[in-house]
């Protein structure tokens, strides 16, 4: 790798200070963007900032409209325009030039052009149509990096009406030898599905192929689509339950390459996606739920490490267990889990514990009562968010016996905090 870098560096004739070095080297301090940023930081008032930015924008506007500006300079101008827009100033004159940059620039310029387009424009913008041709061309390029860039942009922003024009090209990429291109193609199709579901109806079997892809990245990407499809129509995908369960088993059992580990937890986001999918499939369906009990048990057991990510997986697991057809051993373990969350000194876990209790209180009111004391203590917690969550929970666990105590506590709380808790109070009144 080092002599490749060597070669490219020596090939660069007189690196201008405008361009930043490849990799992680810092932007050279004499660049125009650097100057602009420094200029702004030195100013003390908003008014001065406005003046400086307006001056900057006028200068950028002149330069982008000039026929003498090279693509390289345009790239630098776009970065400054993005910066100004980020600060809240309008630079719409630069939008068309961003598209031109993506069209005419070479790789690095194209990249900035595409970035600028994805930041400046939104789906309904009329200029977006001009992007379509550029994307079409890049998708057919032999330079795979250009293909990647095109797919990335398509996955973020694309005009709905032009989907039929680009669909065949994207579909074709699903069979590409390089996994990164397959993955991006799947994500582009996911985006298409979100904005125009009927356009992608005919390729559902291709999604199945992506699900079985040997590369875990591509498979994960396909799960986004499946989650969406299953949300809308769980019945249609029950036959895939065993596949999902198998995948989850493999992940939890550490069968994925070490690369996918995040703090020694195997592919946590993938696990969570699968848990969500299983949750939807097993809801109100005993036979489907039975297929997943074993793997859920396994997930609960494996998540022993004390890291936030493990707790995230546990939370999702617990939610799943409570949604699908109940199984007593699993419920017990899940209840214990929630208990640990609520009793935890870590504030984020406490919050999640309370949230989980609110969620399960319909099915298992005993659980909340078990932790009544902790819940009451949470009312006095210094953090407002915890207090609010506690109130929400208390409202749900009120029954004939404890209503007086709870209402008393609530009124006491309201007396001290005169904020926007009147809504909860009103709901309380309705129940009584």
């Amino acid at each position, binding site marked *: 790798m080092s002599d490749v870098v060597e070669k490219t560096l020596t090939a660069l004739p007189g690196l201008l200070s405008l361009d930043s070095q490849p990799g992680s080297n810092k932007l050279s301090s004499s660049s125009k963007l650097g100057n602009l940023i420094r200029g702004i930081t030195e100013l003390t008032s908003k008014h001065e900032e406005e003046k400086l930015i307006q001056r900057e924008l006028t200068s950028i506007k002149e330069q982008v409209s000039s026929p003498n500006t090279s693509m390289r300079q345009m790239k630098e101008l776009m970065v400054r325009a993005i910066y100004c827009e980020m600060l809240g100033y309008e630079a719409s004159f630069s939008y068309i030039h961003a598209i031109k940059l993506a069209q005419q620039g070479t790789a690095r310029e194209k990249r900035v052009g595409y970035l600028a387009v994805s930041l400046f424009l939104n789906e309904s913008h009329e200029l977006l149509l001009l992007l379509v041709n550029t994307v079409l061309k890049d998708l057919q390029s032999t330079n795979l990096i250009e293909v990647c860039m095109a797919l990335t942009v398509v996955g973020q922003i694309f005009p709905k009406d032009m989907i039929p024009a680009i669909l065949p090209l994207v579909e074709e990429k699903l069979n590409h030898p390089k996994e*990164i291109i397959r993955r991006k193609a799947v994500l582009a199709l996911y985006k298409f599905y979100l904005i125009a579901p009927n356009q992608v109806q005919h390729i559902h079997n291709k999604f199945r192929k992506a699900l079985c892809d040997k590369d875990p990245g591509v498979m994960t990407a396909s799960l986004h689509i499946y989650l969406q499809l299953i949300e809308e129509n769980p019945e249609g995908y029950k036959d895939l339950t065993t596949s999902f369960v198998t995948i989850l088993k493999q992940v939890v059992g550490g069968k994925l390459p070490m690369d996918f580990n995040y703090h020694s937890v195997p592919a946590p986001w993938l696990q969570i996606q699968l848990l969500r999918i299983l949750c939807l499939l097993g809801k109100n369906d005993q036979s489907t739920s039975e297929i997943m009990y074993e793997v859920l048990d396994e997930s609960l057991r494996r998540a022993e490490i004390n890291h936030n990510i493990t707790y995230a997986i546990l939370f999702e697991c617990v939610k799943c267990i409570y949604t699908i057809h109940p199984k007593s051993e699993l419920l017990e373990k899940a209840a214990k889990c929630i208990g640990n969350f609520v009793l935890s000194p870590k504030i984020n876990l406490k919050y999640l514990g309370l949230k989980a209790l609110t969620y399960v209180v319909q099915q298992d009111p005993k659980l909340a009562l078990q932790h009544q004391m902790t819940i009451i203590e949470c009312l006095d917690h210094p953090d407002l968010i915890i207090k609010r969550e506690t109130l929400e929970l208390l409202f749900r666990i009120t029954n004939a016996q404890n209503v007086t105590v709870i209402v008393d506590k609530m009124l006491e709380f309201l007396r001290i905090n005169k904020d926007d808790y009147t809504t909860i109070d009103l709901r309380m009144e309705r129940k009584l």
Partner: protein
Amino acid sequence: MRFMLLFSRQGKLRLQKWYTATAERDKKKMVRELMQIVLARKPKMCSFLEWRDLKIVYKRYASLYFCCAIEEQDNELITLEVIHRFVELLDKYFGSVCELDIIFNFEKAYFILDEFLMGGEIQDTSKKSVLKAIEQADLLQEEDESPRSVLEEMGLA
């Protein structure tokens, strides 16, 4: 995910990525409101809060606040880890990243963000593959002579 914001303790926006179509004016308003709320939070407080119809997850790293807005059914704790993963990637890429790196190279930060959080959905790809993709794109030059050989060597052309 609906959007992600990065801003400094002084309330200066460093990066904003929106995953849903929102009008400019609304964006500005939301950013302003949210910054106020998050900056008012004390250090030991919960990292999650509810705002309008969204859930907000935020975390502070040195002088930068990373703030994400997620939907009702999303898992807050996992979003916290998404933020952490992003920081890890930035750190690996810039080598011990600090706020200045992100300020002066914000377009690179965007590239990394786009690579691992495509269209608002986190890709559970290995850290290595995300960084590799960025570095390969970085190594491209405008000159015609070298790119061909560089790409060929990387097996991409």
